[in-house]
């Protein structure tokens, strides 16, 4: 076992930014908008670094797919403690159409190339909310998956996992190699402070293209339209309960 962990990190629009839809309804305004690492990806990086600090794994490799700016996200991961980065260069139309299927194919190819023992991802990205990449990657590699992980512990060549599911908490044990997706309560990500960012500048980021990994990034999905959610209708005031019932009947609600 190589003791190597691949962590996928995604560059998304910062969670605190107010999203605006482009006037032509083809997408969301991204130019000049603050971007940062997906919060769930931060949790995944933190978990990987924690495993390394406990000496349970040897190397943390941060991976990001996207244009040149994705390297900033990888730098943040390096500042949090990852050892090196791989930037999969996808830009322009390919990047606009990049979805979980293509990313999982890329991750699967990288996992084989890097002989990874574990793939850690965030459970979903806050921009597309797909919640698919982890599951698809596991399926492509035929590896077990521990999704929505709120607790992870390594036991020999197996992993004990607690999953946060609708019914409560599920305890499972899976073999390695495996794919784990991080849920909110897995850990508290450390902040990438300035001294750490400076130290991380010495760490290497390799650049590859999807074609180098034998992955075709054409999408089978086409975005037809992006629009804002319907505006909230103004409320109406009524004088009596009878009026309320009449209004509800009119609206077809009763």
């Amino acid at each position, binding site marked *: 076992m190589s003791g190597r962990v691949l962590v996928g990190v995604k560059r998304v629009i910062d*969670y*605190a930014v107010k999203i605006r839809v482009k006037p032509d309804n083809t997408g969301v305004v991204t130019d000049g908008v603050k971007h940062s690492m997906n*919060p769930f990806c931060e949790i995944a990086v933190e978990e990987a670094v924690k495993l390394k600090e406990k000496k349970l794994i040897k190397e943390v490799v941060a991976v990001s797919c996207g244009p040149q700016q994705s390297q900033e996200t990888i730098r943040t991961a390096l500042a949090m403690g990852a050892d090196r980065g791989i930037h999969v260069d996808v830009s322009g139309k390919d990047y606009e159409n990049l979805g979980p299927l293509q990313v999982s194919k890329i991750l699967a190819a990288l996992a084989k190339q890097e002989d990874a023992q574990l793939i850690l991802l965030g459970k979903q990205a806050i921009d597309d909310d797909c919640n698919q990449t982890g599951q698809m990657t596991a399926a492509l590699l035929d590896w077990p998956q521990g999704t929505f992980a709120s607790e992870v512990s390594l036991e020999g060549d197996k992993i004990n996992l607690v999953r946060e599911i609708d019914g409560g908490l599920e305890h499972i044990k899976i073999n390695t190699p495996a794919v784990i997706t991080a849920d*909110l309560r897995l850990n508290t*990500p450390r*902040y990438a*402070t*300035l*001294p750490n960012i400076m130290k991380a500048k010495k760490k290497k980021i390799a650049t590859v293209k999807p074609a180098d990994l034998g992955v075709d990034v054409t999408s089978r999905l086409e975005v037809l339209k992006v629009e804002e959610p319907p505006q909230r209708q103004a409320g109406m005031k009524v004088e009596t309960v009878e009026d309320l019932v009449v209004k509800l009947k009119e609206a077809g609600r009763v």
Partner: protein
Amino acid sequence: MANPLKTEVIRLYKNLLYLGREYPQGAAYFKQRLKSAFMKNKDVTDPEKIKQLVARGDHVIKELEALYFLRKYRAMKKRYYEPEK
């Protein structure tokens, strides 16, 4: 100001400035407050006092990191999880 302490103070200022970029009320507001806080103490010469102030600054860094984490955690919790009964 003693030389090693000078680098400490500058390090602290740079770190705080970097953290301030994400301040909820705006990076400019933060920078203004940061600068005036440091300027207020610019004539302090006692090394002990300087060390105390630097320690206080490090404490502020920790508080900011906690603030940022809580903001993000609460936003994610609100967006993705059912409210607790």
